[in-house]
């Protein structure tokens, strides 16, 4: 699953640390999400969407595996 987390974070001038603190996760988790190495739980995806005041599907792009 791809996401626009890094792009949105940079647009708003937020550091990974600040985003991690706001979402109450570790900075490493934000890094892993941005690199696409880790897919968030539904709860975390909702938290991220609410933080950016956007819909989940505007941030996370789900591509079905063929």
């Amino acid at each position, binding site marked *: 699953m791809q996401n626009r987390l890094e792009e949105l974070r940079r647009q708003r001038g937020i550091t990974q640390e600040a985003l*991690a*603190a706001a979402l*109450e*996760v*570790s900075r*490493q*988790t934000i890094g*892993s999400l941005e690199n696409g190495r*880790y897919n*968030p*739980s539904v*709860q*975390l995806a909702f938290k991220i969407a609410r933080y950016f005041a956007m819909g989940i599907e505007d941030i996370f792009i789900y591509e079905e595996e063929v």
Partner: protein
Amino acid sequence: MLIRYGSSTQNNAFFRLLIIVGAISMLFGSAGYLFKPDASDYFSTFLGMCVGFGAALTGIGIFGLIRLKRLSPEKLKREEIERLDERNKQITLTARSIGASVASILLVVCAFLFMALGYRLPALLMVGALYAQVISILIAHRYFSKKM
């Protein structure tokens, strides 16, 4: 994971419990030496293990309590976030699952090894531990299947 970082009240209780269990274990080991100084070699080793295990638990408990007292609320909050972080939890679960698989393989290898060397009781204990592991997995699977 022996050292954990929950809320400070939870951690205080956890570290105090470690100290109590450690102290009981040390007392048992020491009392054994005092009241049965002529104990067999095996029993003496067992008593020594009790003292060592108790000392380790007490040490961890004391260290944990001192650390909790010295940590700032901000640092405690950061550690709480690290502990509850979903990715960290997943990493820990995966690592534990691999560790459990390795332990299972070792139990089988040791059971065969002990039997080949003629140590019947340890071999049977290993097989018993394997059964206990399989049964606990089945029970946990059943429980969580109903819960989730």
